[in-house]
């Protein structure tokens, strides 16, 4: 394992320290317990937005703290949910009296730790609503699993709910917008290589020289099935088709297409996948009216990508277009 780190045990804190210094105009990084808040504190009257989860998915979530998106983020250890004692102060810091929406990716650990923190926050008098992101169609039968996982669609939920909060929606309204994004977003990913958790020191799973893992999660956990390496057009199809089918996309619909890198794949390859996925949508009569291509919800240095489609309507598109000023999304 070769990584640009000092003590692997300090990887998360060292990285956050650098992040805080580089983006002092946008965020404030707190050390004990670890959490990140928007520079300047909560906006009076605005619903606060908090998200969090295991580290290793950078820029998620801390990179999305700032005007128009999150008010606070809570990074856990690598691939490990943060703890309630971290989440609670983040919720409190995000509260400006209008209540707080927590955006939680659907993993047992995240759900349980956020649940506990929300109970504590409510006991302290903060009004809290929660939305669970579960966009990963690789998890087929939620009856026999912990339910679909939250993956790259999370960034779309955070952006659009953030814009709704800025628009002045109340807590129920922001939560409703977030739920509408969740209902209309689906993702699926592929891994070309595994990733290595710093303090583990060896890859999180074993993948042959000519294999890829389809339906990969974002925690270095293996996916749905393993297939032989294939051209980008084929891989794009095996990601896009289940996503579009699950959404039930119909001729004439309009979507946002996100091709997300897992951290170790060059941008140039992501654009190849984007081009292929877009063509498949066009063939279905679906218009891609908004796009995002890059490393937004990653798995350390994993090579691979995911395809996310969000069904758009005028309101969601407008909220997507609304200004945002964070370390990782900025317009």
């Amino acid at each position: 394992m070769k990584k640009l780190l000092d003590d692997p045990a300090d990887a998360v804190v060292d990285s956050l320290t650098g992040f805080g210094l580089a983006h002092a105009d946008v965020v404030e990084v707190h050390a004990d317990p670890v959490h990140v808040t928007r520079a300047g504190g909560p906006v009076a009257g605005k619903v606060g937005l908090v998200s969090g989860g295991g580290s290793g998915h950078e820029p998620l979530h801390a990179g999305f703290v700032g005007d128009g998106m999150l008010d606070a983020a809570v990074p856990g250890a690598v691939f490990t949910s943060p703890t309630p004692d971290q989440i609670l102060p983040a919720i409190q810091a995000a509260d400006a009296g209008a209540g707080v929406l927590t955006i939680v990716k659907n993993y047992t650990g995240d759900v349980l730790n956020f649940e506990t923190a929300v109970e504590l926050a409510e006991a302290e008098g903060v009004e809290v609503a929660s939305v669970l992101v579960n966009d990963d169609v690789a998890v087929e039968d939620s009856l026999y699993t912990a339910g679909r996982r939250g993956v790259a669609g999370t960034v779309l939920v955070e952006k659009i709910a953030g814009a709704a909060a800025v628009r002045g929606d109340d807590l129920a309204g922001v939560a409703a917008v977030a739920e509408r994004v969740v209902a209309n977003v689906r993702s699926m990913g592929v891994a070309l290589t595994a990733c290595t958790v710093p303090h583990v020191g060896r890859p999180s799973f074993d993948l042959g020289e000519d294999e890829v893992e389809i339906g990969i999660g974002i925690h270095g956990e293996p996916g749905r099935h393993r297939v032989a390496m294939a051209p980008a057009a084929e891989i794009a199809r095996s990601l896009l088709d289940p996503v579009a089918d699950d959404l039930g996309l119909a001729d004439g619909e309009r979507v946002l297409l996100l091709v997300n890198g897992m951290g170790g794949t060059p941008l140039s390859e992501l654009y190849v996948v984007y081009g292929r996925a877009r063509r498949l949508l066009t063939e279905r009569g679906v218009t891609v009216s908004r796009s995002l291509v890059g490393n937004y919800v990653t798995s350390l240095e994993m090579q691979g990508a995911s395809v996310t489609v969000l069904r758009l309507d005028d309101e969601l598109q407008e909220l997507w277009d609304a200004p945002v000023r964070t370390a990782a999304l900025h317009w």
Partner: protein
Amino acid sequence: MGLDVVWAERWVRRTAEAVAGAKDELTELDRQIGDGDHGENLHRGFQAVIAKLDEPDAPERTEVGDVLKLVATTLMSKVGGASGPLYGTAFLRAAKRSARPEVDTSGVVVLLEAALEGVTSRGKATPGEKTMVDALTPAVEAANAAVEAGQGPVEALRAAAEAADAGALATVPMVATKGRASYLGERSAGHEDPGARSTALILAAALDAALAGADGE
């Protein structure tokens, strides 16, 4: 000999040692069907517990529940992941039901039952889903049987520890339907569940601590 505060502290320290020793094994199990952090998660948690235990000006702990509550709150605030709140709640419920200086045979059963109830109330898993519940459920049953057979608390712990070990082993062929391993579907079969294994370790440490006490150690 009773299971008192000294036993409880010794249990916690033995657990911390056992987890430190098994860290890589637990992580490897989690690497197979999860995300490879279970060993590190628990190790981080129990190191924090030991640090709390060793705090010089901590208030005196007089009841078994005092020790278990310290474990609970520390695991909840330091572990994260799924196992943090699950073990945290388990120890919290166990602490509530052991608010006395010493635990007798039926107290062991009460304690374990409370722990199991804590895990299932949070995690909603039932036996056979390939989780820590598959180690804890037979442990409770075995302890119960020991009580009914009129055995002492150490024997109840021994029965529980052995049953938990067997329960953990029995998770190998199971297909997971809760937790991260569930995402693997059929591919989760053939591997032991890391949480079930760590539960077995924790109960083995409880027995060790009791035996060490009995030996006057």
